[in-house]
C-alpha cells in the first residue's frame, strides 16, 4: 500500500511516568491480579470462619507484637517511598540513590521481623484449616515482600552503575514505588484480618 505521512513523532520522549508509561499499566495489571489472589485468600478465611463453630479453631488469637511491628515499619516506609518517587520524577540521581538504599532496607526489615511472626500465629499450618489459611495468607504476603525487595535491590544496584544514568531507570524506580504502595496496603488489610478479626 502507498503511504502518506500525516504526522511527525520524532520529538516525542522515550519514557515518561505514571499512566503514560506502558510499564505502569503492566504493573497495575499485575497488582490487579495479585490483589484478586489476596481477595480470594481473604474470602477463604471468612468462608472457613463462618463454617467453624469457634474461630480461631483450636488456638488463641495470634500474638500482636511482630505483625504490628511490621505494620509500623511498612507504614513508615511510605514516606521514603513517596520521596523516592518524587525524586525519580525530578530525575535527581543523587537523591534517588539514597532513597532506593533506604527503601531496600525498609524492605528487608519486615522480612527479618517476619521470622518471628510465623511462630506468633500460635498455630502450625497442619493443625487445622484455621492454621492453614493464616499461614497461607502470611506466606502469600511474604512472597510479595520478597519479590519486591528483590526488585528494589536490583534497581538500587543499577542506580549505582552506568545504567542508572539512563532516564528510563527513573521511570522504573517510580513504578517500583507504585508497587511498594500495593505491598503496604495489602498488609494493612491482611493485618486487620489476621490479627483483629479473631479478637472481635
Amino acid at each position, binding site marked *: *500500500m502507498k503511504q502518506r505521512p500525516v504526522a511527525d513523532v520524532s520529538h516525542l520522549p*522515550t519514557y515518561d511516568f*505514571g499512566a503514560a508509561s506502558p*510499564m505502569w499499566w*503492566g504493573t497495575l495489571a499485575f497488582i490487579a491480579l495479585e490483589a484478586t489472589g489476596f481477595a480470594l485468600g481473604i474470602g477463604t478465611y471468612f468462608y472457613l470462619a463462618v463454617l*467453624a463453630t469457634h474461630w480461631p479453631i483450636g488456638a488463641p488469637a495470634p500474638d500482636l507484637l511482630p505483625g504490628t511491628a511490621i505494620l509500623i515499619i511498612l507504614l513508615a516506609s511510605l514516606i521514603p517511598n513517596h520521596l523516592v518517587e518524587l525524586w525519580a520524577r525530578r530525575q535527581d540521581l543523587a537523591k534517588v540513590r539514597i532513597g532506593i538504599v533506604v527503601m531496600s532496607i525498609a524492605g528487608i526489615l519486615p522480612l527479618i521481623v517476619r521470622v518471628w511472626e510465623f511462630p506468633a500465629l500460635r498455630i502450625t499450618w497442619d*493443625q487445622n*484449616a484455621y*492454621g492453614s489459611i493464616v499461614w497461607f495468607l502470611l506466606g502469600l504476603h511474604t512472597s510479595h515482600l520478597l519479590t519486591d525487595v528483590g526488585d528494589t535491590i536490583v534497581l538500587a544496584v543499577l542506580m549505582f552503575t552506568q545504567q542508572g544514568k539512563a*532516564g528510563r531507570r527513573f521511570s522504573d524506580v517510580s513504578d517500583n514505588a507504585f508497587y511498594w504502595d500495593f505491598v503496604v496496603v495489602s498488609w494493612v488489610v491482611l493485618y486487620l484480618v489476621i490479627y483483629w478479626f479473631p479478637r472481635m
Partner: protein
Amino acid sequence: MSGTTGTAAGQEQDEGVKGVRDTGLEAARRRAYLAHAWQTPKGLYGWLVTVDHKLIGRRYIVTAFLFLVLAGLSALAMRFQLATPEAGHIGPDFYNQLFTMHGTTMMFLFAVPVMEAFAIYLVPLMIGTRNVAFPRLNAFSYWVYLSGGLMIWIAFAFDTGADAGWFSYVPLTGPEYGIGKRPDFWAQMVTYTEVSALAVAVEIIATVFKQRAPGMTLDRIPIYVWSILVTAFVILFAMPAVMVSSTMLILDRLVGTKFFDPAAGGDALLWQHLFWFFGHPEVYIIFIPAVGFVSAILPTFVRRPVFGYLGIVLSLIAIGFLSFGLWVHHMFATGLPQLGESFFTASSMMIAIPSGIQIFCWIATIWGGRPIFATPLLFVLGFIFTFVIGGLTGVMVASVPLDLQVHDTYFVVAHFHYVLIGGAVFPLLGAVYYWFPKITGRMLSERLGRWNFWLVFVGFNFTFFPMHILGLQGMPRRVYTYPPASGWGEINLFISISSLVVFIGFALFFLNILLSLRNGRIAGDNPWGASTLEWATTSPPPSYDFSRLPVVAHREPLWAEPDILPVVEGLRVDAREVLGSTVADAVPQLRVPSADNSIWPLLSALAVGGAFLGSIYTPWAVVWGAIPVSIGFICWFWPKGEPEDEE
C-alpha cells in the same frame, strides 16, 4: 493522560534527535534498517531467543493445535470404549485418565492458549504497532505454556496422568483418595500454565491501552480487539482463583494443610467455589474471543460494517462482568436455599441477553450485506446454527430444578460441546481460514475447506445432538461403561460412528494446511478486501509489521481509504521502537523502546518449571528453585546498554 510529560519531553528536545529516523528515508533503506533492527537470528538460537509476536503467536497456535490433536485422540479412544455396552477395551483406570486429560487439555492447553495465540499474532497488527507491550514476557509465556503442557502429557505417558476430572474435586484428589502423584501433576501444571495465561493477559491489556495507532480512539477499536481486551480482563480476575485453589490442593497433599478436610475445619465445597469462580469465567474466556472472530469475519464476507458496533462492544463487556456471577451454576446439586436458587437461576439466564444482542446484530449485518459464501463465512454460519442451540440448552440448565435432572449427565456434555465447539471452535476454524493468508502468504484451498466445513459441521451435530437424549434418558457423565439393559447402546454406537466423521473433517483441515503451505495460491496483502489494519501490510508481515506506523481516521480504515495508508514518521529505524499513545484517544505520547531478543525468558521459564516440577516431590524445591528463578529474572531485566538506553 499524564501531567508529567513536561520534564522528560523537555530534556529530550534539548538533546536533539538521536538515532536514525524514518523521516525522509527512502523506502528501501528504511526497510533495510528496520529489518536489521527487528531481525530474529537464523537457526535454532534465533528460534529460542526471538521475541517477535508473530513467531511466538504462530508457534503458540501450532502448539495449541497439537494439543487439540492429543485431546481429540483421547476423545476418540473414549468413544471407542463407549460404542458398545460393557465393552472391555479400556478399563476404568485408563478411561478416567483419558477423560481427565481430554478436559484438562482442551480447556487449559488448547482453548485458552489458542485464543491468546491468535491475539498475540493479530492484536499488534490490528492496532498498528510492531510488537506487544512486553515482548519478553510474551516469549516467557510461550515457554511456560509449552513446558507445562509437555510435563502433564509426559506424566500421562508414565501412567501418572491426572484422573479425577478437569475440575479435580476434593476429596477425590485430596491426600487420602488421590492416586499416586496424579493430582499433584494436575495441580502444579495447572498453576504453572495459568502463569502463562496471566502473562499474556497483562501484555494484551498494556498493548491495547498504550500502543494503538494514532487516531484509533475507543470507538474505532476493531471489535475483535475489544473482545480480546475484555477476555484479558476476565483472565486477570478469574485465573488467580484456580491458582489459589490448586495451590491449596497441593499444600493439602504435600505439607498437610487442612483446607479441604472437614474433620479439621476445612470444607470440600470450598474447592468447588474457588474452582468454579475461575471455571465459569473460563468458558467466557474461550467464548468472547470467538465472537470477536465472528465480528471480524462477518463484515468482510457480507461487505458492510457490522451492525450495532456499540451494542456488541457493550455486550462483550457485559458478558465479561456477568461471567463472574454464575459460578454457583455448577453447584446446584450440592444444595441451595430456595431464595438462592431463584437468584442464581435469574443471573444465569441473564447472560443470554448480551449473547442474544450479538446474534441479532449479526443477523442484521447479514441482512444489510451481500454474503459471499467463502469457507470463513460457512464456519460463521455454522457457529450461529450450533451456538444458538448451545445457548438455549444453557438457558435450560440455568433453571435449578431442571439442572438437577440433567446435571452431570450427557445432556450437559452435549450442552457445553455445543457452546465450546459450536460457539468457539467453529469461529476458530473460520479464523484460521480467514487469517491463514496473512500469516503464511498463501490461501487455503476453498474446495478442501468446504469439505472440511461440512464434515465437521454434520459430524459434530450427529455426535453431540443425540447426547441430549442420552442425558435425559439417564446416562451419567464420566462412566467408563454402561450396562446393556440401559438401552443406551444404539445411540452410543451412533455417536461413536459420527465422531469418526468429525475426525475425518479435522484430518482434512490439517491436510489443507499442509498442502496449502506449499501449493496454496499466493495471497497478496488483502485477499478478502477486508477493512482492518492487519491487511494493510504484506502477507506474511515483515518482522517490523509496518514500515511506518499507520494513522487511523475511521473504524474501517481500509474501506474508508483503500489505496493510501496515512502514516506517522519520526520513529527510529536503527533500534526497536514503537509508538505509545494515550489510553482513550490514542494521541501519540511516547516513542517506546521495544525489547530485543533474549535467551532469558526461556531460561527463566525452565527455572520456574523446574521449581514447580520439583515441588511435586518436595516442598524444598520451591526454596532452592527460587535461586535459579531469581537469576533468570535478574538477567532478563538487566539492561545491556542497548540503544534505547542512551536516550
